[in-house]
């Protein structure tokens, strides 16, 4: 077939008149020659011509047939192939449905995960020039503390002195009580520095940005509210710009409403207020409040910005050596900060669905191979009728493509529901609201279907059209050799191996989960409620007053019937959250090279009783801002105090100028404060009940159902603090559960994949075994006729299935061990090479293989030898 003809459908149509003319001349020549012959034989010229034409046959007919020869060009061929493919698929509905459903599941799951990866990892942030946004932070050099908040005055310095940024802005959020109505309502308030909207590049949907006057001390109090707050609280009032809200004692005018899609810095922000840039407290160089986001100038790279800010900070270090000398500037693209944490999980998820699709494909290849073998007669006939190999392969590929396309279309429905599934399983995924089905996902599904069609269809098509097979026209199934099925058995083995790998992974994760549940936390979290009471950062101006207020709340709650004890803590126990600090013990020799590192936690004095953490030595502590007291845990005492209890020594937190040194008052037992999967670290408990205006309040109730106390607590607090709202009342156990939500999602998903993989392998084994036995029915019948026992046949078939499954298991175990390292970071209490898990998985797979082989084996053993031998 020449290239020209292959591609020639366009050229063909242009050449049609020319070729037609040629055909005409060629045929006319032949007729003329015949006419001459007849004349030479003695006929009259008109009679000669008539005879010649008769003998020649219908000229138009021939021309039509000749045209047919050329019309097999790619466009028409494709149409014919498609029609034939549809016909073929309709003839074997169960086969088609099985393949389409399998592919729908595989391609659908793949597209779903791709839509998530596309929205979360690939697409830029939903802001104009989103790639120019970076997150900035300050870090004290050589300090272990992960804190990177920036002081407002330093932010202004950076903004003024840099050359690579359009603008920088800072923000933090805090809960606030809105008191416009009868009862105080909790709102999430974002306090922002100037240039906030400028950096994000988004303008308010209604109203305007803050003015310069409003961003300075003495200006009017204003807020911009979110779209959700506008709809929920104000019923989407069109006159919103004339209304005010009260927070605490102040009344704020609403000057703008943000668009519905804007919810930075946090998803549930209700309103934004400006912080006066010249407020006195904002001038302290050590007051680190802000999370900072900056917008780089167009064309500037992150490295250039990093170098520039390093220079700026160096200049500041010279100007203000005491506060700025050992500070480094951190810079990271904002998208990375937002999504970097989930990248690994998403990629593992993608790997799993792709593996699943691969398994489904091997299944389908097997099925298509079987089909191609059954159609050998048809193919051989087509060969003898003059079809070329390419044409037949094209036809078989079209069938595969139609199946794949149908599977992809169905799979898109699956992907459509994917966003809902993701929202249900992992509500905390960043940018989850951006996941939806768009053209890119559809294109991806299409690409998947093409790849699948080629992958699944090419090999069976090539195999089925091997020219030597045309000899089968004369051959009957008398001489089927089981060796022909070697390829299909290999595919089944591959499926079993992949299933074993996925099952092993799921098994390891499940065991980790179970081990976590058995761990002794070192504290008791049943019957404990946590809650928050709104407060503002401004209250930290009078730190002792704040502490007394919190004490009063704690005492009032403790006196309530049904409450056993109350306390506050900065970070909830058992919920992963680190606050690693550098510690110095004032007494004894100082080794400047040997920094002591410990977790610091801020708790009220009743914390240990409330959480039932036993005190091992010394007395308890009392809050006293001027002479801070601390308790240390046993790990700390063992590691740093050389076993002596160290009571009476003084500890200082390096790098914190707000806290003076504290006196060790006692030692408490170790508790898994960092999370159930982490061993307790040396910890210093600073006895201070007001590390922030709104710490976590812990309430230990007497009864079994702590949540029944919620209303009572709310009322009690309202009595003493009428202006504040109480929110986020929930059992501590809920928080502990949430902490492992991502872990749980991973485990559930991997278990789901493993289950699907093993069922696919099971179906594959069953199908291949059935098909192989169908081919060998005569062989089986012969054996039975020659005297073999039925149980022998049964045993042989079962062994065949078991053999392949065993080989697959071995391969799978090797694969699992090879990939064990990727899971290592997520396991707890099991090594990635755990033999028990592997053994259990192998046993499970062998049992499934046994069950899958049972039906074909029984069927084979019940073959009627006479009936089969008589068939031909």
């Amino acid at each position, binding site marked *: 077939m*020449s290239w020209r*003809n292959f591609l020639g459908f366009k050229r063909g149509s242009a050449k049609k008149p020319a070729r037609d003319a040629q055909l005409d001349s060629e*045929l006319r*020549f*032949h007729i003329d020659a015949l006419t001459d012959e007849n004349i030479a034989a003695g006929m009259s010229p008109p009679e000669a011509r008539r005879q010649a034409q008769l003998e020649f*046959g219908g000229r138009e007919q021939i021309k039509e047939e000749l045209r047919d020869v050329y019309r097999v060009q790619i466009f028409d061929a494709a149409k014919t192939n498609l029609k034939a493919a549809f016909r073929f698929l309709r003839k074997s509905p169960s086969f088609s449905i099985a393949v389409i459903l399998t592919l729908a599941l595989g391609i659908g799951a793949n597209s779903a995960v791709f839509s998530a990866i596309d929205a979360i990892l690939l697409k830029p942030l939903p802001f104009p020039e989103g790639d120019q946004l970076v997150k900035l932070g300050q870090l004290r050099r050589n300090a272990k503390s992960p804190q990177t908040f920036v002081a407002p005055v330093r932010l202004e310095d950076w903004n003024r002195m840099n050359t690579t940024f359009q603008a920088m802005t800072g923000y933090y959020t805090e809960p606030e009580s809105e008191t416009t109505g009868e009862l105080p309502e909790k709102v999430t308030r974002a306090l922002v520095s100037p240039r906030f909207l400028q950096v994000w590049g988004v303008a308010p949907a209604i109203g305007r940005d803050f003015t310069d006057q409003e961003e300075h001390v003495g200006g009017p109090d204003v807020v911009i509210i979110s779209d959700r707050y506008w709809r929920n609280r104000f019923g989407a009032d069109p006159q919103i710009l004339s209304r005010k809200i009260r927070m605490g004692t102040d009344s704020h005018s609403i000057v703008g409403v943000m668009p519905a899609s804007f919810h930075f810095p946090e998803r549930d922000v209700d309103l934004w207020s400006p912080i006066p840039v010249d407020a006195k407290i904002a001038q302290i160089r050590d007051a680190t409040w802000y999370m900072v986001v900056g917008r780089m100038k167009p064309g500037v790279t992150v490295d250039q910005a990093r170098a520039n800010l390093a220079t700026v900070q160096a200049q500041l270090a010279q100007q203000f050596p005491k506060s700025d000398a050992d500070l480094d500037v951190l810079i990271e693209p904002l998208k990375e900060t937002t999504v970097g944490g989930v990248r690994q999980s998403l990629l593992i998820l993608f790997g799993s669905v792709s593996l699943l699709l691969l398994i489904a494909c091997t299944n389908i290849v097997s099925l298509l191979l079987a089909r191609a073998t059954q159609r050998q007669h048809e193919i051989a006939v087509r060969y003898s009728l003059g079809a070329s190999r390419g044409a037949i392969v094209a036809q078989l590929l079209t069938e595969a493509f139609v199946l794949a396309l149908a599977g992809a279309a169905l799979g898109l429905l699956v992907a459509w529901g994917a966003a809902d599934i993701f929202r249900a399983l992992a509500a905390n995924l960043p940018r989850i609201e951006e996941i939806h089905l768009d053209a890119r996902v559809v294109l991806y599904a299409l690409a998947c279907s093409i790849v699948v069609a080629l992958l699944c269809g090419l090999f069976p098509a090539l195999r089925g059209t091997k020219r030597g097979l045309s000899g089968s026209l004369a051959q009957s199934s008398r001489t089927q050799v089981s060796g022909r099925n070697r390829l299909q058995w290999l595919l089944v083995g591959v499926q079993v191996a992949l299933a074993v790998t996925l099952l092993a992974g799921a098994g390891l994760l499940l065991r980790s989960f179970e081990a976590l549940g058995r761990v002794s936390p070192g504290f008791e979290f049943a019957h404990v409620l946590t809650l928050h009471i709104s407060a503002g950062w401004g209250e930290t101006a009078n730190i002792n007053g704040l502490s007394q207020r919190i004490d009063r709340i704690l005492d009032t709650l403790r006196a309530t019937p049904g409450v056993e004890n109350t306390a506050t803590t900065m970070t909830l126990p058992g919920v992963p959250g680190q606050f690693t600090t550098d510690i110095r013990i004032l007494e004894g020799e100082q080794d400047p090279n040997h920094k002591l590192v410990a977790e610091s936690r801020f708790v009220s004095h009743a914390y240990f009783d409330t959480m039932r953490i036993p005190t091992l030595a010394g007395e308890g502590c009392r809050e006293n801002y001027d002479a801070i007291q601390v308790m240390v845990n046993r790990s700390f005492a063992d590691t740093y105090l050389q076993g002596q209890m160290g009571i009476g020594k003084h500890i200082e937190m390096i790098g914190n100028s707000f806290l003076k040194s504290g006196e060790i008052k006692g030692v408490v037992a170790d508790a898994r404060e960092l999370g159930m999967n982490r061993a307790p670290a040396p910890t210093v408990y600073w006895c201070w009940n007001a590390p922030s205006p709104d710490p976590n309040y812990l309430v230990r109730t007497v009864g079994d159902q702590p949540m029944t106390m919620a209303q009572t607590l709310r009322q009690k607090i309202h009595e003493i603090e009428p202006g504040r709202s109480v929110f986020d009342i929930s059992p501590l156990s809920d928080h502990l559960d949430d902490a492992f939500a991502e872990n749980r999602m991973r485990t559930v998903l991997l278990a789901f994949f493993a289950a699907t993989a093993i069922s696919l392998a099971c179906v594959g084994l069953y199908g291949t075994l059935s098909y192989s036995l169908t081919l060998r029915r005569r062989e089986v019948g012969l054996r039975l006729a020659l005297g073999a026992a039925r149980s022998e046949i049964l045993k042989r078939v079962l062994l065949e299935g078991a053999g392949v499954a065993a080989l697959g298991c071995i391969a799978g175990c090797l694969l699992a061990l090879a990939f064990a390292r990727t899971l290592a970071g997520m396991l707890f209490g099991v090594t990635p090479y755990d033999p028990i898990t592997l053994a259990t998985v192998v046993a499970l797979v062998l049992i499934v293989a046994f069950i899958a082989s049972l039906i074909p084996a029984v069927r084979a053993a019940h073959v009627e030898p006479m009936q089969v031998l008589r068939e031909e």
Partner: protein
Amino acid sequence: MPTDKSDLLQGTLDMLILKIVALGPVHGYGISLRIRQISKEVLQVQQGSLYPALHRLEKRGWLTAEWGESENGRQAKFYKLSPKGRKQLQAEESNWERLAQAVSLIMQTAQ
């Protein structure tokens, strides 16, 4: 009408055409004439099969074609054997010999 005219299978027709063309460039009429002559009028090809076969073989690349002047001065399309066609002819010839031998062996033993 000769009663012992045989029907030709399509595969065989291809082989015959290739063999005739191997003897030298020839047009469609010439091929049908030669088949009749050489087979002593036993085989006669239907024009309805001849021309589709010719064009098919040309498309497959086993024949190449050129327009030229015939013996009586008219324009005719001449077919030549291509190197690929030559190889194909050799393959078909050996196949045919094997088949013929097998058939004749059976016919002999049956007697």
